[in-house]
């Protein structure tokens, strides 16, 4: 062994260097430990090496793209916990069926996110999370009430945390409204009148873009807004169909008259789902559209919109009903853990991370890649955050206001069948069927469904 002779100065330098290295190592460990607990995660990586399977769709949604990257291989989440998540990318149109089949036949997935109205059919296959929520002191009051309702099962157990949620928003062409000096309508009746004015003064442009096509229940979104605003409902408290009441008929007549009588929308709307209907505004063929708030980031993406539409779209809360109320549908994607998952604890860490307000704020504020920009955030504190609003033109705050009165679709296990009856019936009415007789027939069909399911005799 070669002995290195050091003088005093050199020895002092070596000690100082080693000391500095030690301090840096300690502080790095402390930063890591702080980050894990900062997000409410367990420190020490107790589930290191776990690979979670997450059943979800639509990885083109900006929020999902970013979160998939943040929880995959070599991600921040993996560095904090040692866990990686593999995001499935089932097409939206097939996701409901896949979740139902997976839930009822014993799933190979650990974690799943679902659209609220689908959940009742399989919530009994999801792990109750109340004890975990309490242990980790998650503030449930920071979520809209409708989000919690949709995430709770029939016994009152919370089986999912709100993950991705949307209020309905009225998007409009700012330049058209400025040119014609039009006020922003706050009721559906106002929307119809405004649309007629726009069409009269701007031939070739549809006043409003709508969707009446049979496509995963998407033609129900605006209909429920009118139905609830007018004082009607889909099911009553004992789960009987009541959407053929006088108020419901009036609301439905208004809804279908937009295409049949008022003609303020593209005649091809009878075949439109959400993609086609949003394209009407994105490509400059319509002046208004009622849709989910997350579309706002599309209107700022030069690759997604026509030049005339780029950065030229304003927004306002979705309209209410003149003489009634403003009560729109709030769509929520709860995220939960399958009962038979072998990685329930790791799955809970994953859920805590992706629903954490700080993580969601970071995602919602990130506009570095326009195609990945997404203003979606599920907590009121996140929606009212100044940085998130600055990055998203103030739409989160508008959404927060709308969500205070929003509600969710009926939480019944027969919703898939009921939805089918409703969307087919609405499509038939949009293509010419009489409203009252069609609603009555639909009510009889739904009544038979509810009886078969044992809701009543």
């Amino acid at each position, binding site marked *: 062994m070669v002995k290195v002779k050091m003088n005093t100065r050199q020895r002092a330098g070596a000690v100082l260097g080693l000391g500095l290295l030690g301090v840096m190592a300690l502080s790095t460990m402390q930063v890591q430990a702080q980050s894990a607990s900062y997000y409410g995660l367990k420190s020490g990586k107790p589930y290191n090496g776990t690979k979670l399977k997450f059943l979800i769709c639509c990885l083109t949604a900006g929020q999902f793209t970013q979160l998939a990257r943040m929880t995959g291989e070599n991600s921040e989440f993996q560095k904090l916990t040692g866990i990686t998540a593999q995001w499935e990318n089932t097409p939206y149109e097939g996701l*409901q069926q896949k979740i*139902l*089949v997976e839930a*009822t036949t014993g799933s190979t997935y650990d974690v799943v996110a679902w659209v609220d109205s689908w959940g009742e059919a399989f919530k009994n296959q999801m792990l109750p999370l109340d004890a975990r929520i309490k242990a980790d002191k998650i503030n449930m009051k920071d979520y809209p009430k409708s989000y919690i309702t949709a995430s709770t099962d029939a016994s009152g157990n919370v089986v999912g945390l709100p993950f991705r949620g949307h209020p309905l928003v009225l998007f409009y062409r700012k330049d058209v409204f400025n040119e014609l000096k039009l006020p922003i309508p706050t009721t559906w009746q106002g929307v119809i009148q405004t649309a007629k004015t726009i069409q009269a003064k701007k031939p070739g442009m549809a006043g409003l873009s709508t969707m009446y096509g049979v496509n995963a229940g998407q033609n129900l979104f605006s209909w429920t807004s009118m139905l609830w605003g007018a004082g009607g409902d889909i099911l009553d408290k004992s789960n009987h169909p009541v959407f053929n009441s006088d108020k419901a008929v009036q609301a439905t007549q208004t809804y279908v008259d937009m295409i049949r009588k008022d003609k303020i929308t593209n005649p091809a709307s009878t*075949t439109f789902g959400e993609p086609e209907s949003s394209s009407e505004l994105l490509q400059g063929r319509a002046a208004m559209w009622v849709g989910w708030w997350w579309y706002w980031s599309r209107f700022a993406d030069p690759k997604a919109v026509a030049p005339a539409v780029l950065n030229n779209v304003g927004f306002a809360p979705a309209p209410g009903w003149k003489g009634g109320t403003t009560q729109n549908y709030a769509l929520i994607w709860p995220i939960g853990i399958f009962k038979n998952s072998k990685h329930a604890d790791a799955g809970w860490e994953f859920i805590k991370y992706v629903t954490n307000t700080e993580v969601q704020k970071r995602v919602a504020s990130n506009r570095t890649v326009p195609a990945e920009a997404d203003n979606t955030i599920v907590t009121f504190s996140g929606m009212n955050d100044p940085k998130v609003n600055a990055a998203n033109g103030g739409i989160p705050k508008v959404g927060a206001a709308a969500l205070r009165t929003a509600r969710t679709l009926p939480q019944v*296990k027969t919703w898939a069948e009921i939805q089918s009856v409703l969307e*087919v019936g609405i499509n038939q009415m949009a*293509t010419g069927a009489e409203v009252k007789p069609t609603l009555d027939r639909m009510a009889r069909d739904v009544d038979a469904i509810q009886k078969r399911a044992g809701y009543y005799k």
Partner: protein
Amino acid sequence: MDLPQTSKLSPDLPAAAPLRSGPAAARKPWKPQSTRLRWVMLGPAMLVIAATVLYPLASSFVTSFRDWRLTNSPLPGPFVGFANYARAFTDTAFINSLGVSALYMLLSVSLTLIIGLGIAMLLSKPTKLNVLTRTLLIFPFAVAPVLKGYSWKFMLNPEYGVYAKMIGDVFHPLRGYIWLGHEFSALCAIAMSEVWGWAPLFALMFIGALGSIPGETTEAAKVDGATSFQIFRKITLPLLAPVIYIVALLKIISAFKMFDQVSIMTGGGPGDSTQTLYFNVFQTAFRNLDMGYASALSYLLVALMGVIATFYVRTLLKGS
């Protein structure tokens, strides 16, 4: 001239000739002599067939007599006898889908036969161009039904669809027509997307059949002063009748299985005007999760297809 009877054994040879050694024996394919050995060798394949075909068939048949909704329980429910089958005959959705499938079948089979026969007549002469064109005829059939559905949905779009534009330019009243937004035209659009794939295949079959029609018969008819149409009606069509009958039956069976284009192009709409039988069964099973009723509907479909398949097989056997 007598041809050597190579297809028959020489009467001088014994019924079971003894094995010979050497190169001749190496050319003969080996057959297991023992019956038990044959069963042992067939065993794995039969197990796979039993597991993947017979068991699901039997299981779904038993399920069709149960009340089993996955939203209630992941385990099969109680036996309810023929209640599921009886329900089908009062279920407006099923009766509607029966009508839709029947109408779709009539449209697609007749159009496929007519267009296929037309293509065959055009390409029946053995010119170089015709031979080259015939090789391209198989491509539409090779396209996946889902792709056909998406392509036709885009091509019929009233705003930017190429077919919609072409039809609108030729027939002005149809300019901007919403092909998938009206009940009958939506069904026709789905039928045409299927005809596009099948007609060329049928044309190939008809070309083969046309080639077997003796040339002397048509020449004799021409000498007697028959027009082309008369020759087609009184000679060609009757001689093609057996082939037309067989391909029609084949197409009928295929028509009742229509699902992909319905799912992609219309989702069963407008309303429920394109909800075919298969689509209805799929919705019942995988959207409503009513497995008992869906199984019963499937077996009603099997019964219907069985009747058609019986005609098909009897015709084939008669022909051979």
